[in-house]
């Protein structure tokens, strides 16, 4: 098969996903955490598309569109939440927003 081998896509996808996880775990700003989530989603999208191309099947594309729709909806709701949180607490530090607990 010509072109870029599948494993490269997968490795790139894994690197992007790991970066997303790391960003989610280690960054304090909610905005950055939020972007890390998007990064993880897109890493998964990349692997879907790669498999879809590799096996000449349309399922992966379909899943990607689903994920994109969900991500768009999530971005709208999530940013709205972040906005209200900032208005109420005047901070975006994730460690300080921990009142929803036992």
């Amino acid at each position: 098969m010509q072109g870029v081998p599948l494993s490269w896509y997968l490795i790139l996808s894994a690197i992007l996903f790991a970066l997303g996880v790391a960003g989610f775990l280690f960054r304090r700003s909610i905005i950055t955490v939020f972007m890390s989530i998007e990064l993880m989603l897109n890493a998964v999208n990349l692997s879907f598309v790669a498999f879809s191309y590799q096996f000449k099947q349309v399922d992966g594309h379909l899943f990607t569109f689903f994920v994109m729709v969900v991500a768009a909806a999530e971005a709208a709701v999530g940013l709205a939440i972040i906005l209200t949180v900032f208005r109420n607490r005047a901070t975006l530090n994730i460690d300080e927003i921990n009142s929803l607990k036992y």
Partner: protein
Amino acid sequence: MQHLWLIPTLPLIGFAVNGIFGKRFPKSTVSAVAVGSVVLSLLWAVKVLAALGSLDTPHVEQYFTWFQSGDLRFGFDLQVDRLTAVMLMVVTGIGTLIHIYAVGYMAHEGGYARFFAYMNLFMFFMLILVMAANYLLMFVGWEGVGLCSYLLIGFYFLKQSATNAGNKAFIVNRIGDFGFMLALFLIVIHFRSLEFSVVLPAVSGKPEETLNLIALLLLVGATGKSAQIPLFVWLPDAMEGPTPVSALIHAATMVTAGVYMVARSAPLYQAAPLAMEVVALVGLATAVFAATIGLLQNDIKRVFAYSTVSQLGYMFLAAGVGAFSAGIYHVMTHAFFKALLFLGAGSVIHALEGEQDIRHMGGLRKKIPVTYATLMCAGFAIAGFPFTSGYFSKDEILLAAHHHHPWMYWVGVVTAGMTAFYVFRCLFLTFFGDYRGHHHPHESPWVMTGPLAVLALLSLGGGFIKIPQYLQPVLPREETAHDLSLVVIASSAGLIGIALAYYLYVLKPALPDQLAQSFRGLYRLVYNKYFVDELYDAVFVRPTVTGSRTVLWRQVDVGVIDGIVNGVGAVARIAGGVLKLIQSGNIRSYATWVVFGSLFLIVAMGLLVVNTAAGGAR
């Protein structure tokens, strides 16, 4: 098909209509429904009996299978034979009269529709009881009449004593019913059926011990329902209910269910001589015992209640000496005169606006003449005055008893004398002498005096309906002594009782108190009903209550049951207290859990795949 089912169903419809809509109906509609349903039931019963003719063999109608288990079938089957025919006529006939009477008696009472709904329900269950073709259906009626008895004793449920009396009746009856149920279990085990037509002909092949045991357990049930020693204590208290209830349930019909059941099981009892002897002894002992208590009671209804217990004792004596038909004969005549006594007492109480103590009555002869005349008829009947109804049935029993054991006859004769004495003591104190109360007596309306008059005629002439001859095909008669002198002695005992009562309470009214003074100990013992209630209270009730309170409540309930429930709760709470720490509110800690969880899953699945691959390769 004669549509036997209509006979019990008509009162059931009356119950349903009055029970559901009665509150919104005017009283006249409630009365029409209640009385009408019973009258229709009576008419249908008459029509059925007329159509069935001589009834030499039982007429059975099978409607549906109630339930089935293996080869055991329990059906909703009704039957009519000559025994049932007698009971049917008594129950529907007396029931009709008492329903009519109750329209007048209950006219000014609250809960009018409720009262008649319960009365109709009682009629339904009583008719099921007497028409059942198997022991199980009979037991349904048996329990049902017990329920109605409970509901109607506690009819004035705002009165503590009435609810207590209802509870007492129900609980004491439960004890008897327990024996009945054990008997049913034994019958199923040994006969593989509960049909009368299967069980009763099969008794000849069974061992005598088994039959004795079954018969004695059935007797336990009968002593509960028919208020015999040792379970008679509920009946006098049952007088808390309205008087028509006392007349219908606690005198004429329900309490005779035990006698009916024993008579129905006659072949079983005849094959169980020991049980027969016990039946006779229990009956005789109850007859004497209750009669002595009746001598000194002052509540008019209680006197008659003890009299009922005593007369039921006679019926059991009859059954015990083998004269089942004489027992049923007495059931019928007793239904006439005892219903009349109670309804008459109700009329007196009605006239005196609720007064029941005979010491506060007196001189009512002129003021309520119809009640007086009818009550005197009942008095003569129960005293066994020659050619009244009580005379025939009581003689039948006493002669059979003499044939069995002469001493039983003599005890019975003494009891007959006491019966005559206490009934006439009651009547003389009520109607003779001077009025000692402060009410303005008035005669009852015709709806009440009408039934009284009919019952008076039946009390006087009912004995000429020769029940023993009629029952000959169903209940073979025992040999009885045919000795005119025995009859004369029995009747004169009654006359002596009447004369003595007349002497003590009309001619020399001061004498009874003097006698009570001189026999103080004996008087107190009998006046307090031999302290049987107190004895039962000390032996059974208190230990049960104390045991329940200290052991069952404080130990078992609080310790074990609450302990388990609270323990489960505490475990959940402690575990939750530890686990809640995970919910820290820190988003990054959640994320860490998710990451480690995912990693764990991936590793676990990877290992699984490797293992399966290795397993497949092997």
